[in-house]
């Protein structure tokens, strides 16, 4: 790896770390598409994404360990289910690779997932209504599918449902190289009715474990690019501290619109890369790289700008009004 490329990965990791520290999620779903658009083979992109998730979540778990925000019962069920799901997802990737369709299917799945979550986040950013999520968690808790378990926060829910959610997220994790935080967090909070603090702590712990297993599965077959992971991690560890510090100053809802835009930009970038490669259109390949890195720079920049504006108590200046949505 050249020094220039290493510096680039450290810088990119720094920006991703700011997003992770601020939003509590958002590592691998940027790394894997970024590696894909940079031309890394799909299995290396997925494996390296998972190894990066593991490293980043270890740092998150170390920071959260003293807060007591972990439901171990929930974490164990989720981890067992996700481990099985990751193994299944990896086998799907291997089968697709043997059929010669891995790059296409993974790219299409990424486009769909990022677009869906991006649109939901956009809707959430524009709405203050929480009735739907309350209704959903109450309905899920009312389903008496044995065995039933009682979680922290006095939440009584079916272990089978928790297992099912973990399995589905695990398959997506093994298939796409994502940690699953951006899927598990809403699933636990809105689907199961787990309090937000417990959902965050449990999420980070089980992502650490499942990320380690996912990275192990891919590393076993030699599909983890260690220099890429190490340089990304060197930047993201610092960025995560900056992002966590900024989250004490800036309201997440002010930036949510930018976050949704970033997800949608990631979706368009992966789609553009596929079309550009299939029809040999160079400008689309360039556009996809510019989109994914540009969106990361803009959103992390907006977070830092919002923090500076908050520190200066300025919410009327041009740039400060621009930093929030």
């Amino acid at each position, binding site marked *: 790896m050249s020094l220039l490329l290493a510096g680039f990965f450290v810088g990119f990791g720094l920006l991703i770390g700011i997003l992770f520290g601020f939003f509590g999620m958002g590592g691998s779903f940027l790394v894997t598409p970024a590696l894909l658009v940079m031309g890394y083979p799909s299995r290396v992109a997925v494996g390296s994404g998972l190894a990066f998730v*593991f490293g980043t979540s270890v740092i998150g778990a*170390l920071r959260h360990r003293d807060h007591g925000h972990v439901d171990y019962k929930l974490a164990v069920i989720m981890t067992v289910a996700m481990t099985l799901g990751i193994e299944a997802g990896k086998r799907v990737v291997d089968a697709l690779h043997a059929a010669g369709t891995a790059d296409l299917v993974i790219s299409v799945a990424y486009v769909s997932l990022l677009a869906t979550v991006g649109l939901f986040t956009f809707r959430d950013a524009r709405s203050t209504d929480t009735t739907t999520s309350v209704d959903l968690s109450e309905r899920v808790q009312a389903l008496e599918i044995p065995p039933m378990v009682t979680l922290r926060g006095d939440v009584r829910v079916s272990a089978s449902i928790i297992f099912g959610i973990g399995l589905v997220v695990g398959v997506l994790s093994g298939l796409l190289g994502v940690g699953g935080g951006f899927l598990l967090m809403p699933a636990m909070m809105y689907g199961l009715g787990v309090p937000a603090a417990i959902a965050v702590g449990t999420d980070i712990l089980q992502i650490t474990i499942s990320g380690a297993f996912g990275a192990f599965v891919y590393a076993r077959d030699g599909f983890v690019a*260690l220099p890429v992971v190490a340089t990304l991690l*060197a930047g993201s560890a610092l960025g995560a*501290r900056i992002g966590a510090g900024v989250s004490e100053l800036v309201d997440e809802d002010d930036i949510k619109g930018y976050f949704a835009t970033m997800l949608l930009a990631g979706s368009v970038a992966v789609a553009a890369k596929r079309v550009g490669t299939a029809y040999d259109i160079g400008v689309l390949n360039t556009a996809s790289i510019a989109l994914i890195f540009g969106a990361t720079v803009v959103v992390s920049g907006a977070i830092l700008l919002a923090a500076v504006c908050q520190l200066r108590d300025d919410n009327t200046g041009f740039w400060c009004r621009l930093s929030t949505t």
Partner: protein
Amino acid sequence: MIIDALSVSPIVRAVGLIGLVLLEAMVLHVSYGVVTNTLGPNVKRALGGE
């Protein structure tokens, strides 16, 4: 770079890789903690225009 598979078994290689990532994460967590605790307040003051 894909990890070289010449000399060790795939499982040992994978465990070694996980161990390296874990070690790096812990070292970075501690070292950046010292840096941000030392420089953080000054940076905050400077950005706040004080």
